C-alpha cells in the first residue's frame, strides 16, 4: 500500500495537462462593416456638432493594430466655456422646469436606441479601446443601456428615494470619464445627472472618445433638448478647464488617484460638489474551505477582465497557505486556456492593452516585480506582433512590502500572497491606501459576514467577483475616492436636499 502510494506520488510530479490541442478554434471575427466611424468628430455642444475654437484635432487609434480610426476635436478653454454656457442655458430654460415624467421619457428613449444600436456600439468600443468583443457585447453595452433604463425610472420618483424631503438639481455637472469602460462610464455619469434635472458637460478619455460621440448621435436621435448633454473630448488640460470653470456646480470624476487629488485642491474654497472614483488594489481572499475551482475562476475573471484595466480588479490574491500550491497550479492551468489576441474575435478572452503608455507602465511593474524577487509566471500563449498586447501574468512569492502588492498596475498582472489566519488576512487586506473592492471565497456563511464587516472596501463580493448592476451602489473608501454611483445612492450626489 505504502509502495503504491509512493509510486503514485512520484508519477504525479510529471503529470501535466496539454492545452495546446490539435483541435483548435478558427478565427471568428465580428464584422467591422456593421459599424460606421466618421473620419472626424467635432464637439457636441448645444445639440450641434461644433468645430473646436482651439482648431486642434487629435488621432484616436486601434490599440490592437496601431492604425488610426478617426480624429476628434480637442476642446480648449473657450470650447469648455461654450459647453458650460450651453448646459447652463438648457438647465435654466428647459430641463429643470420640465416635469420629471417628461424628462424620464427622453432617458428611456436614449436607453432604447442604445439597445437598437448595441452591435455597432460594441464593435466601436472594441476597436477604439482594445477590449474583447465578448465583453463589450455581453457586458459594457447592455449594462450601459440598463443604467439609462434604471435612472429613467427614478426621474419622477425622487420623493420615494428621499422621503419627506424636497429635492432640487444642482445645476451644471462637469463629468470626466476614464478609458477603461468608455460608454459604460458615460452612462454611469450622465443617467443619474439628467434624471435628477441637472445638465451635463462630459469629457471622454483621450484614447477612447468614439463611443461617447456615438452616444451624442443617439442623444440627437432621441431629441433630447439641446444643451442638456454636451460631449467634448480632450486630455488633462480640457479636464482642468472644466474643473476650474466658475459656473460648474458639480464635478464627477473617475480616474487616477493623483488626478483626484489635484481636483480636490483645485475646488477647495468653492461651492462645487464632487464625487471621485479612483484607483484600487483589491484583495481577493481564498480560504481553505472555499469551492476552489469556482474561486480560481473568480480570481481569473477578477484580474483579467478587461485586460485588468479595472479600478476594482482583484489584483492582490490572498490564499490560505494550506491550499496555496493547489490554487497556484490551477491558476497556471487556467492561464493556459485564456485566448489573447484580436479584440474583435468572438473567442478572444484578453484583448489589447489600451495604449502604448499603459503597456509601458505594465512592463515597468513586471520588471519591478522580478527585481523584488517575486516569481513570475506568464501564459505560454502567442501574442500578435503588432499592437499593444501583454500575456496574462502572475507573481507568486509576493511579500506585503513589495510594490507589486501595493501599487495599482492596471493590467493583466496578479500578485499572489499567502496567509494563515482570518485576523492576519483582514489586517493585510486593509493594509492599503486604497479601499474600492474586495472578494471573499469560503463555503462558510458566518465567515463571509465576519469578513465583510471588517473589510474596509466599498464593495465586497462573496464567492463571486466583478459583478455590476445599475441597482447596486459602487464607490470607494480611503484613497479610492468618495461618493457612490449606481443604485438609489447614486442619486444623492446630484441633488440638493431641502426640508
Amino acid at each position, binding site marked *: *500500500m505504502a509502495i503504491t502510494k509512493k509510486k*503514485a506520488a512520484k*508519477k*504525479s510530479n*510529471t*503529470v501535466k*495537462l*496539454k*492545452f*495546446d*490541442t*490539435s*483541435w*483548435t*478554434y*478558427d478565427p*471568428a471575427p465580428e464584422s467591422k462593416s456593421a459599424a460606421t466611424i466618421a473620419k472626424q468628430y467635432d464637439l457636441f455642444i448645444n445639440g450641434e456638432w461644433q468645430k473646436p475654437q482651439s482648431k486642434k484635432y487629435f488621432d484616436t487609434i486601434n490599440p490592437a493594430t496601431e492604425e488610426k480610426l478617426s480624429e476628434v476635436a480637442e476642446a480648449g478653454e473657450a470650447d469648455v466655456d461654450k459647453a458650460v454656457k450651453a448646459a447652463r442655458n438648457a438647465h435654466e430654460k428647459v430641463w429643470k422646469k420640465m416635469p420629471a415624467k417628461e424628462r424620464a421619457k427622453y432617458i428611456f428613449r436614449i436607453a432604447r436606441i442604445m439597445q437598437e444600436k448595441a452591435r455597432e456600439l460594441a464593435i466601436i468600443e472594441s476597436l477604439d479601446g482594445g477590449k474583447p468583443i*465578448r465583453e463589450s457585447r*455581453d457586458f459594457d453595452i447592455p449594462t450601459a443601456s440598463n443604467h439609462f433604463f434604471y435612472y429613467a425610472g427614478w426621474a419622477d420618483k425622487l420623493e420615494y428615494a428621499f422621503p419627506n424631503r424636497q429635492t432640487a438639481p444642482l445645476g451644471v455637472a462637469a463629468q470626466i470619464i476614464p478609458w477603461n469602460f468608455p460608454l459604460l462610464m458615460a452612462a454611469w455619469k450622465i443617467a443619474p445627472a439628467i434624471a435628477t434635472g441637472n445638465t451635463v458637460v462630459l469629457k471622454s478619455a483621450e484614447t477612447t472618445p468614439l463611443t461617447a460621440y456615438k452616444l451624442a448621435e443617439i442623444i440627437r436621435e432621441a431629441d433630447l433638448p439641446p444643451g442638456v448633454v454636451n460631449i467634448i473630448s480632450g486630455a488633462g488640460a480640457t479636464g482642468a478647464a472644466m474643473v476650474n470653470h466658475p459656473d460648474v456646480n458639480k464635478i464627477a470624476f473617475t480616474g487616477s488617484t493623483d488626478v483626484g487629488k489635484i481636483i480636490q485642491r483645485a475646488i477647495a474654497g468653492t461651492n462645487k460638489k464632487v464625487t471621485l472614483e479612483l484607483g484600487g488594489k483589491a484583495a481577493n481572499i481564498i480560504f481553505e*474551505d*472555499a*469551492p*476552489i*475551482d*469556482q*474561486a480560481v*475562476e*473568480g480570481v481569473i475573471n477578477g484580474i483579467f477582465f478587461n485586460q485588468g484595466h479595472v479600478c476594482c480588479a482583484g489584483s492582490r490574491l490572498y490564499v490560505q497557505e494550506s491550499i496555496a500550491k493547489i490554487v497556484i*497550479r490551477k491558476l497556471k*492551468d487556467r492561464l493556459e*486556456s485564456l485566448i489573447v489576441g484580436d479584440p474583435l474575435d*468572438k*473567442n478572444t478572452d484578453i484583448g489589447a492593452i489600451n495604449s502604448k503608455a499603459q503597456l509601458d507602465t505594465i512592463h515597468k511593474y513586471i520588471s519591478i516585480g522580478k527585481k523584488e524577487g517575486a516569481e513570475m509566471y506568464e501564459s505560454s500563449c502567442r501574442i500578435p506582433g503588432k499592437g499593444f498586447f501583454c500575456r496574462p501574468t502572475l507573481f507568486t512569492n509576493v511579500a506585503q512590502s513589495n510594490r507589486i502588492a501595493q501599487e495599482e498596475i492596471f493590467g493583466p498582472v496578479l500578485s499572489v500572497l499567502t496567509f494563515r489566519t482570518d485576523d492576519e488576512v483582514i489586517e493585510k487586506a486593509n493594509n492599503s491606501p486604497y479601499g474600492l473592492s474586495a472578494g471573499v471565497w469560503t*463555503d462558510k456563511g458566518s465567515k463571509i459576514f465576519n469578513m465583510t464587516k471588517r473589510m474596509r472596501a466599498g464593495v465586497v463580493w462573496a*464567492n*463571486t467577483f466583478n459583478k455590476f448592476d445599475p441597482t447596486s451602489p459602487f464607490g470607494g473608501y480611503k484613497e479610492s475616492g468618495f461618493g457612490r454611483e449606481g443604485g438609489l445612492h447614486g442619486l444623492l450626489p446630484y441633488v440638493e436636499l431641502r426640508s
Partner: protein
Amino acid sequence: MAVQHKKPAPAATVRNNYFHSSPPIDQVGVEERASRFTKRSIKKESKKNGLLLVLNMIDLTTLEGKDTDGKVKQLCYKAMHPHDAYTTLTGEELPTVAAICVYPSMVKVAKKALGDSGIKVASVATAFPSGQAPADIKIRDTKYAVNEGADEVDMVISRGKFHAGEYNFVFDEIAAIKEACGDARLKVILETGELGTLDKVRRASDIAMEAGADFIKTSTGKIQPAATMPVTLVMLEAIRDFYYKTGKMIGMKPAGGISKSKLALHYLVMVKEVLGEDWLNNEWFRFGASSLANDVLMQLVKGKTGLYQAANYFSAD
C-alpha cells in the same frame, strides 16, 4: 453500519473520511463557468473537425425492453457506416462511432455484428438502471456481460446507499464490480439527476475514481435531468484533480439529453479547456447518445453543400 459486504477493510474507513473532504462546489460559479464555454464560436474547419471528433466519440445506444437481435444488428451497421452517402458526396471517409451500448443479453449479437471493425461493445450491468439488486446478482450480471464479450461495462452506483451516507458500501461495490470486469473497462454511472446537488456529484465522482472506475458517467438516460454542462464540468474537474493526485487518467461520459451538434461542440470545448489534448479522443471521452449521430451527420453534409438535408435522408435506427 449494516455489514452486507464481505470485508470492510480499514483502508476503506480512511477513504470514507477522505470523501467527507471532497471540496465544496459552488453551484452559481459552476453554472457561470459552464455557460462561458458556450460563448466559444466554432466555425469552418474547427466546426468540421469538431463534428468528426464528436461522431467518433459516440456510444450509440439502445436500452429498451423491446430490444431484439434485429434492432441491435441494424444499430451495429449504423455504427460502422454512419452515412455512406457522405463519402459518395465528398470522397472523404467518415469515422465510425466509438461503441455500441446494449443490455448484457445483446452483447453477443452486437459483438458478432461488429466483427473486427474496432468498435467496442459496451454493456450496462448491475441491475441497470435502478441498481436495486443484491450484490451477488450485480456481480453475476457483470460477469455475464464480460463473458459474452463486452469490452466495457457501464454500471450504476447504489444511489440509495449513497444518500444514506454509506459511502463505504458504494465504494466497495464499485471495487467488486471492477474486479468482476477483468480486462473490460468500467464506466461508473452516478445518475447525477438523482444526486440532487453538485457537492454530491463531486463526492460520488471521487468515490468512483478511488474505487477503480476507468470512466465516470453522468446518467443512464432513464432519469431527468440527465447530462448537463454544469454536472459534466464538476466531474471533469474531479478527473483533473484525481489525475494530478495519482497520475492516473479517468475517462468521462456524459449521457442522455445531448442530441444536437451545437451542444456536443460546447461539451468538446469544455473538455479542451479543462483537461486538454489527452482527453480529446474516444479513449477518454464519450457521448452516450442515440439521436446525436444523425444531427452531426446532417451538419457535416451541410458543411459541404451549404444546405440542410431533410431528416429522411439519414437512416433512423
